[in-house]
């Protein structure tokens, strides 16, 4: 939302070339299948972790799982949702709200002492 110049439009207007084909080239199968494989592997990793009692017991369990799903989340958003390729405006439209949402969630977790500083 913040645009910090009086005379020059930092809004994406200039970046975009032409109304008729406004989206840039998206990747193809060669990338997509690798991404898919990557996601599958992490998922397998997650489930596997769930079945290792010693690991579940360790205090690494939760953080690691969170990181893994975070990576999956990011991968899908960047590649399948093309945020990596598409207009930077879309990145702003998504990450802004996402951050506020996560901050709110964290705040609630603290307030209900689900996690403590």
């Amino acid at each position: 939302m913040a645009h910090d110049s009086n005379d020059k439009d930092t809004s994406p207007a200039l970046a975009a070339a032409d109304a008729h084909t406004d989206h840039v080239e998206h990747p193809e199968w060669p990338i997509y299948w690798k991404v898919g494989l990557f996601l599958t592997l992490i998922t397998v990793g997650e489930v596997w972790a769930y079945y290792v009692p010693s690991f579940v017991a360790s205090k690494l369990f939760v953080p690691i799982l969170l990181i893994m799903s975070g990576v999956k989340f990011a991968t899908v958003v960047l590649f399948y949702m093309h945020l990596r390729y598409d207009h930077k405006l879309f990145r702003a439209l998504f990450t802004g709200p996402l951050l506020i949402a996560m901050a709110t969630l964290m705040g609630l977790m603290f307030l209900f002492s689900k996690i403590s500083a």
Partner: protein
Amino acid sequence: MANHVAHASHHYTSTGLDSKKIAIWTFIGSECMLFASLISTYLIYKGRSVIGPYPHEWWCASTNTTSLTRIANCPADQLFKPILNIPVTSVSTFVLLCSSLAMVLALAAVENRNRPMPPNAGAWQKALRSSKLWLWMTCIMGATFLGFQAYEFTSFVHEGLSIRKNLFGSSFFTLTGFHGTHVTVGVIWLGSLLAIDYKRGLGPKDALQVDIAALYWHFVDVVWIAIFTLIYLIK
């Protein structure tokens, strides 16, 4: 509308982007808050139910006691096993992931509809150009996911967890139910695209329509990634 090629000269857009695509991203941003609230509620109420059954523990109704392992000397009809069924859900999670892959391939197919097929194109390359195929795949896998969820819900009810039973039941069914509803809408949406595809074929000029549906679909998938970890795996 701004995205109607025909009217582009009447509808100058300041970013050169399609209004619908901006709208769908804004909508997705809003959905983030929606699911954040649902997930927060589930986590807040986690372990607060006064009676079972519970997601990860065994529960003995007669004594209202729980443990991570089967409770001995609890009458069989009083013993409730941990509700969440990780193997089944892992499969359905995988199915939903694959549907995302099919979805991007469908979009790619639509975008490349008019590209000349290389002469020596193999069956696979031809398949990659078939938007119908990949839209079908996506729909089917989405439907499969819903099937899994239906199975999950019914079996949970049989195992004694209803949406009225306890805080876990209420927050779990509501959260996953909301997600399921989103998937259902997605399947219908993709179905309508398929219909159009059969009617007149989807080409590059429809890429935006498909792209928008795809964004929605992937977001629903992304939400499930979070749910699977936060609700199912973390004890």
